């Protein structure tokens, strides 16, 4: 209910100007802090409890109901039997908070998205707020019955869908994905997949009160790098042993350096007040000391070390229980070889991402966008460990584009910002016959086209181009285009 409406309902009496209405400004930061306190109560049910994702981190900015500080996400895998079963655990949770004066709704499902939707379903459908446990494998069946708000879509999308008469999830899922994407964008498809549990959504669990940390304070400031490296290596080994004792693996190691160096002061990222901090991230959580130390060394190379170091500290964050690989009955050798390749790739990617930066290593994913510049999307390979966001590296790689034109229809090098060319002669209804490129005159001997690439006027990026593949007399191939209705020609790609 809007505030103005509430004020109107509670009309002011003569004694009290506000009509007995107490107005408190919303403060999401304080709400998150309160929610973090509630996590402590959840640790008696499971050690893996996370707050809602932070708005705008890892995803485009937009109103996302999932980021509202009103839910706790808990991974209860392997904990249900301590309370009889999963339903017993859910009942115990609800009872625990009710006794402390909170009104809570508990839902257990196969993915955070479905659990969130079902926990909120009572709000939209008016159903009783009893704990609900979804039978494994029936998440989507449950989701289909819920209103579209359960998909945690953007407000404008929900409003438009309601205007179109799409009120329930099953009606929305009947629409072709390409139509939904064209009308509402990639973000909407991503949110639908998230709600249906089709996107792996690892929880960035809050650290337990007893952190896995190792530190060393020096009596006198130390500047010798070889000493510092030796101490740091010892701390990494100590943390790795701590993880092993605790039966956990970590998504990242945070190294903190306290120093008295005046040259390395405030201004740089993570450097302020004589303290420097950086995180070494992993693509898959781990605890192998040698591997962790190798990554820390690579990450160190990206920073200028301060002199006069007074204290070193290493802390493991994002602790999770290690996953046990599923055993196979048949063809164990092939499975082992596959795992070896995958593990090797993860190790390589971790090294590259920590040394070159997360942005420098990516898996390309092809979309069905027609605009050449938008066809390829780069998916960062890093997981929660690298930047603290909740996007797991998808090692499945890019998906094939269904709308292929044929072999060699696209160049292997796309010029960032099409380059204008000087054209000496143009074939009637065709491409240039002679044009200047990199200081020489190119004579076109063969060409293929035009291939018209055009987007709708209602899209953000309006494009109307006629593309030609041209072969010049020296055997080189280029991708040229002219904007529809204009005379200027551009080279947009090289068939390397």
């Amino acid at each position, binding site marked *: 209910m809007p505030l103005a409406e509430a004020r109107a309902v509670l009309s002011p009496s003569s004694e009290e100007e506000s009509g007995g209405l107490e107005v408190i400004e919303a403060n999401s930061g304080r709400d998150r802090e309160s929610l973090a306190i509630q996590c402590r109560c959840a640790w008696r049910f499971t050690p893996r409890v996370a707050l809602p994702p932070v708005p705008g981190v890892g995803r485009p900015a937009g109103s996302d109901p999932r980021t509202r500080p009103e839910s706790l996400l808990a991974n209860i895998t392997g904990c249900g039997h301590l309370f009889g079963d999963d339903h017993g655990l859910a009942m115990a949770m609800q009872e625990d908070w009710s006794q402390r004066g909170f009104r809570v709704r508990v839902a257990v499902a196969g993915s955070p998205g479905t659990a969130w939707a079902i926990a909120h379903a009572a709000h939209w459908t008016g159903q009783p707020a009893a704990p609900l446990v979804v039978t494994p494998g029936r998440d989507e069946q449950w989701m289909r019955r819920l209103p579209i708000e359960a998909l945690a879509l953007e407000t404008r999308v929900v409003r438009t869908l309601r205007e179109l008469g799409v009120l329930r999830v099953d009606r929305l899922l009947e629409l072709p994905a390409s139509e939904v994407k064209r009308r509402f964008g990639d973000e909407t498809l991503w949110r639908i997949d998230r709600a249906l549990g089709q996107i792996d959504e690892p929880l960035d669990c809050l650290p337990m009160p007893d952190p896995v940390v190792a530190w060393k304070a020096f009596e006198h400031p130390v500047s010798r790098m070889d000493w510092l490296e030796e101490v740091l290596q010892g701390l990494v080994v100590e943390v790795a042993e701590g993880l092993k004792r605790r039966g956990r693996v970590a998504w990242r190691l945070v190294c903190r350096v306290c120093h008295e160096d005046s040259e390395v002061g405030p201004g740089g990222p993570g450097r302020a007040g004589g303290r420097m901090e950086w995180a070494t991230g992993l693509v898959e959580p781990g605890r192998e000391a040698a591997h962790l130390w190798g990554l820390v060394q690579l990450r160190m190379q990206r920073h200028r070390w301060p002199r006069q170091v007074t204290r070193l500290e290493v802390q493991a964050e994002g602790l999770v229980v290690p996953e046990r690989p599923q055993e196979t009955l048949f063809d164990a050798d092939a499975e082992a070889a596959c795992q070896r390749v995958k593990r090797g790739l993860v190790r390589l990617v971790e090294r590259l991402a920590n040394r*070159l930066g997360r942005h420098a290593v990516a898996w390309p994913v092809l979309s069905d966008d027609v605009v050449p510049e938008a066809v390829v999307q780069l998916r960062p390979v890093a997981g929660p460990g690298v930047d603290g966001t909740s996007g797991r590296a998808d090692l499945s790689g890019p998906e094939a584009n269904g709308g292929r034109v044929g072999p060699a229809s696209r160049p292997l090098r796309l010029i960032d910002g099409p380059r204008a060319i000087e054209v000496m002669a143009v*074939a009637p209804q065709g491409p240039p016959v002679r044009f200047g490129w990199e200081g020489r005159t190119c004579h076109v001997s063969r060409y293929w086209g035009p291939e018209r690439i055009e987007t709708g006027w209602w899209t953000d990026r309006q494009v109307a181009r006629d593309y030609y593949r041209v072969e010049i007399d020296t055997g080189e191939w280029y991708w040229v285009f002219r904007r529809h209705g204009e005379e200027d020609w551009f080279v947009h790609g090289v068939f390397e």
Partner: protein
Amino acid sequence: MSRLEQIDSLARRLRRMERSRRPLEAGEVVEGTGHAALDSLLPAGGLARGRLFEWINARGPGTGAVTLALLAAGELTKDGENRTAGALAVIDRDGGFYPAAVAEMGLSPKGLLLVRPESETEWLWAVEQVLRSPAVDVMLTWADRIDDRVFRRWQLAAEAGGGVGMLVRSAEALGTPSWASVRLLVRGWACGDGMECGGGSGKRVGRRWSVRVLRDRTGGGGDDGFEWLLEWDDETGGLHLLSRLECPAPAGVQATR
């Protein structure tokens, strides 16, 4: 270490240093490219694992050496009956590599890893790391100028990793020393080169190259004076051998980039 052990160690190092100059050994694996024309052109009958291959553009980058290198690598990126394919890593300093074209070439786009280093130092390091990784089957990068020692490190890294390194270079590299096992000169073959082909907006897209093996350390040979004329068929996606011509010297080489 005794003198005998020291001599033995030095002899082992010497053998290892000379390995790239020696023919293929019995245990070395040669992978077919999936294109009979390329297999017959490549000295060992395919791509020997743990080796570097240089693809030199006789003219500008539009000549198509990268296309040929990726066509040759296609078979390595597919899962086999008894093996799981590793990644195809493309290390692109310029940032213009366009993966949309890769899927069209018959390559499995699964596991295409794109690395974009920002500086030369990072690029050199990244190439060595990728070559050294056993999880990468094919590494492709553009390398016009390479220091001799760096080149040697890459070659040793490729041996350690067991993958195939594809180096695409401009014609400037022709006069420089190389640690690659095979050096191939690629020249685009246009319609005006005396070959019969559809004119104007011809419907056939067949792209033609002439390829010459300039250096071969896997078989111990060098330039045999032959140019292989290949055509990439747009209808079948296959690579066909059109002819094998005898030419006294590589023609049409122009150092542009």
